[in-house]
């Protein structure tokens, strides 16, 4: 027992250290000024916000931030709405080809993204979607929808049929039953799907760098690769670190805000339990 208890303490500590050290390193780097980045010390000797100021003064970064926020939010909103409707149909209706849809969706989710970049590049160039917001929103949708549909379908299946039937007997149209009863009950699933989608879009690098060429649509992960220092003799490492910290903040914030919403057991009390 003693050994087990030790393992229970040591394991989590190891995992936390393992995951947090790079983040701390990034923060530390972003606070170092000038030539200090190579001083070989973990903590900055003279912490400064200089890098952050530089980053926010750079057009490259601010436009990329705008693009990232816009594209990610649009992709998330569309993906969640479409996935909710599709998952509901899959969970509730019996129609031919249901299994096929689910397995094709899963196959798409497992597709290596990089293999699609080439063809997409060509197609987008010829149809005029290259370097535009829709040009990124569409691939994000197609890669996140399958996962969202699977997640939401699982949630919908958990909701007792009677909920909906009760609503219908109470006088609700199928749409009202869906909106007033099913969606609120599936809220944790909807949030989960939304977060997964947002992260995918926010963190994507492959599409971001290959389907854009200017600040019109380039997202932050792609833009980071184009960072240069204040002069060509200066390494942009610290600035990149600062930008990386800035783009990490929304991710952390979202997780902290929504982890409370992603609680199971929302349906407790609906039926005899």
């Amino acid at each position, binding site marked *: 027992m003693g050994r087990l208890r030790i393992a229970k303490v040591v394991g989590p500590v190891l995992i936390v250290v393992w995951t947090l050290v790079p983040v701390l390193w990034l923060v530390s780097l972003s606070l170092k000024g000038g030539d200090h980045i190579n001083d070989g010390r973990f903590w900055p000797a003279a912490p400064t916000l200089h890098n952050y100021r530089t980053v926010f003064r750079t057009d490259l970064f601010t436009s990329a931030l705008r693009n990232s926020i816009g594209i990610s939010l649009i992709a998330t909103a569309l993906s969640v709405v479409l996935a909710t409707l599709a998952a509901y149909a899959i969970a509730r209706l019996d129609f031919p080809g249901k299994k096929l849809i689910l397995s094709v969706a899963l196959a798409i989710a497992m597709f290596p993204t990089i293999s699609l970049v080439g063809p997409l590049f060509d197609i987008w160039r010829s149809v005029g979607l290259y370097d535009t917001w829709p040009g990124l929103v569409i691939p994000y949708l197609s890669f996140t929808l399958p996962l969202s549909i699977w997640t939401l379908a699982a949630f919908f299946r958990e909701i007792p049929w*009677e909920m909906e*039937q*009760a609503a219908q*007997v*109470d006088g609700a149209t199928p749409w009202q039953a869906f909106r007033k009863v099913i969606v609120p009950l599936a809220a944790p699933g909807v949030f989960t799907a939304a977060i997964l989608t947002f992260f995918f879009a926010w963190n994507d690098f492959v599409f971001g760098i290959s389907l854009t060429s200017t600040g019109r649509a380039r997202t932050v992960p792609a833009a980071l690769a184009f960072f240069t220092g204040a002069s060509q003799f200066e390494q942009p490492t610290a600035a990149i670190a600062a930008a990386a910290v800035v783009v990490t903040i929304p991710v952390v914030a979202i997780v902290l805000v929504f982890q409370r919403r992603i609680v199971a057991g929302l349906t407790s009390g*609906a*039926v005899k339990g």
Partner: protein
Amino acid sequence: MAAITLEHVEKRYGDGFRAVNDVSLEIADGEFMILVGPSGSGKSTLLRMIVGLEDASGGVIRIGARVVNDVPPRDRNLAMVFQNYALYPHLSVFENIAFPLRLRRLPEEEVRRRVEEAAALLELTEHLDRKPSQLSGGQRQRVAMGRALVREADAFLFDEPLSNLDAQLRGQMRTEIARLQNRLGVTTVYVTHDQVEAMTLGDRVAVLRKGVLQQVDTPRALYERPVNLFVAGFIGSPSMNLIPATVEGRRIRLPFAEFDFPGETPAVEPLVVGLRPEHIEDAAMVDPAVRERGVTFEVKVEVVEWLGAEQYAYVPYEAPPDLVRPLHHLAAELDRESARTLLVASLNPASQIRRGEAAHLWFDPAKIYLFDAGTGESLRPSTLQQHVPEHQNPEG
């Protein structure tokens, strides 16, 4: 409020299975109708067809004068209480009850008035702000009923509403449902597989077997004049002893007794004799003058259960296997165990019969039921006529 009429209603599934088969039933305005039967008898399906959650494959369903076969559930103006209550867990008790009213966009003060009225009736007033998950089983049950009440619906439909409650609560809620129905006088259809609910709540009881309506009558008539073996075995607790028998002239032979039948014996063989446990008595407890009229027989009692107010004796007996087989089928259909043939007797609690001892039991042959073992039909009505006055026993 409205009458509900079913005419030759059918439910066929894609694979040809008939869950409900040619059921015709008239439920009068304000009547409390019970649909009863073992699992798989189609009683819930029938209820769900009335409310519109299942489409009828054939026949006509009328609510009042309106044919509702193609009317969606929301426009039938019926209220339903589900077996698992189906409360909306994200809404408070108040909003749960108000839900049907909100859908109709009633003004706020009207909603408040009606919800509070229903809550007062169901003693839920102090729970209105809580969520369903914070309520006990009985309270959830009452919320589900409240949601049905505020509707001022044409009829109430209950789908085994008490099956999730423990025995004591079930008794309370049963009384409460009876009280509410009495007070509101709304047409009610109530599905159950529970004997006691069926007998105590209903004005009339409809017994279903494999989707076919067997008999519709008052609880008393079902108990006294079952039309066939199925109804006889289903109604009554403990259930009727069904005993294979042979006939010779007026003489009826049971595995443990033989006697002269006081009426005309039907010319059908093999026969099944139905004998209710409450009609068997310890011979020692029967007045000698009365004992003369009946049949006394000696058996070895295997188990005696003394419950204070009643006492049950269990007597195993041997019977020819080919005569017993159809009875085993019937028992299986009624969801009952029947590994062997067993006579159950409900004795006077003062009886001194002990287990393992030989005992003299007694019954009145005028109170037996006769069934055609082949078809299961009751053979009693024709012979019964002349005996009705003497064996109609008001308390059963």
